[in-house]
């Protein structure tokens, strides 16, 4: 009984943590972008205000059941993936759900949300949403390949599918996988550009092309759900990267520093680049990132 309570407690705390850190990161993203763009920019807590405002908006849009469920699917997917990913080394405070084989489960869960969103957006009848969804799925087909290759390379190399085991390997050897299998890291980082959907891969919700893509018909509470699930998901992904490649984190401050540094890679790359067209983006992912993924696989199987 106590164990279950502890799990629940850990789940709630990690959700709150992921939500607030994720939203802060988004605010910092806007701030950093603004500084690059030669202006002051909004305060770092701007996104909290946005989220509260979106939640307090009345929402009277109805396009059918799937449209209502779409953001919920996203939220479920983000929270589930957060719960599967161990937050800290050593399993003391945030045990979450960890079990043998969770990497494969995670791969499934991470694609589940966007698919549900795609169904929801498809039902709105807005052509912008429909085109945005097809673009999103195409882009997913692009970055999933290097991403899966990198993960499979890790699984082969360390002969485990558990994230905890991979973290333990790094803690024991004292070497980050980032350095021991650099090709997998490179492939995964490049795939991360696609996951975060910042420029040059913001093709899904490109404003000057598709208004805001799949979100076109979603305002108020829907957008609130999407924004908060996005921030949770962002934190979950960053934590996963830290767990897998950067030796995990021993305390929260270390985690925040590491995730923030990782987060700045796509943000800063995005500020100075225009966006790709869909087929160019997919081709990009199937180029160098996939090549690195292949190298990682070869490296894993010979070592």
């Amino acid at each position, binding site marked *: 009984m106590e164990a279950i309570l502890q799990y629940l407690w850990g789940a709630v705390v990690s959700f709150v943590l992921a939500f607030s850190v994720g939203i802060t990161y988004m605010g910092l993203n806007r701030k950093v972008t603004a500084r690059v763009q030669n202006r*002051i920019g*909004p305060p770092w807590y701007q996104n909290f*205000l946005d989220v*509260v405002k979106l939640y307090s908006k009345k929402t009277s*849009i109805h396009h059918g059941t799937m449209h209502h469920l779409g953001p919920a699917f996203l939220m479920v997917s983000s929270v589930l993936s957060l719960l599967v990913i161990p937050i800290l080394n050593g399993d003391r405070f945030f045990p979450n759900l960890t079990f043998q084989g969770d990497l494969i489960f995670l791969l499934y869960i991470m694609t589940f949300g966007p698919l549900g969103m795609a169904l929801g957006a498809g039902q709105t009848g807005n052509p912008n949403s429909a085109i945005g969804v097809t673009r999103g799925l195409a882009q997913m087909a692009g970055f999933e390949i290097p991403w899966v290759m990198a993960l499979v390379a890790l699984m082969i190399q360390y002969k485990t599918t558990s994230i905890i085991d991979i973290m333990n390997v790094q803690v024991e050897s004292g070497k980050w996988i980032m350095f021991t299998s650099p090709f997998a890291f490179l492939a995964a980082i490049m795939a991360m550009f696609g996951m975060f959907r910042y420029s040059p891969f913001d093709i899904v919700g490109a404003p000057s092309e598709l208004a*805001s893509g799949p979100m076109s*018909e*979603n305002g108020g509470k829907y957008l609130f759900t999407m924004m908060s699930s996005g921030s949770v998901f962002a934190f979950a992904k960053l934590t996963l990267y830290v767990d897998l490649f950067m030796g995990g984190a021993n305390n929260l401050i270390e985690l925040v520093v590491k995730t923030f540094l990782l987060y700045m890679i796509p943000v800063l790359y995005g500020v100075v680049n225009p966006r790709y067209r869909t087929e160019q983006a997919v081709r990009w992912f199937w180029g160098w990132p996939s090549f690195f993924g292949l190298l990682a696989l070869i490296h894993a199987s010979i070592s």
Partner: protein
Amino acid sequence: MINDKVSQKIVDIIQNFARKHSLWVLAYGTGCGAIEIPPTMTSRYDAERLGVRGAATPRQADVLLITGYLTTKTLKRVIRVYEQMQDPKYVIGFGSCTINGGMYYDSYNTIKALDRYLPVDVYINGCMPRPEAVLEGFAKLQELIQAGKADGARKYKENLDWYRANQKEVIPVWRMPEYNW
């Protein structure tokens, strides 16, 4: 124990604070005033400091910025856009021509007083209003929101018949869905 009134008041204060500092402006340049929106949003004047930010679709927007004169053809679209926006929503009339027709007072294709067709919360006068004036308009709107006085949407809902009658007066062929909130 906190009674309902007090808790409602606290919620209102938090909501109004958030609404005040997060104004998403619909990216719809209805008239020539749209030329001063990029300077307002970009580096020198940087409206994002106040939480003012562009929104791509009416569903996500809070503020409808009517940038200048409205032709009857645009008025129809603007009404549609306004009705698609979600509560709470605000309208800012931008430029002299939204107030009294400005220099287009004798044109056969532009309306002369915006507040007969849409509930306007803040007017910014001038032709063109400078970015400073636009920022001041936003600051004024924030004041109104904080005081809970920016209730154009409620006015529209309560007096829908009057607004509809005025709108139908200038739009000869009315093929639009009903307003559903």
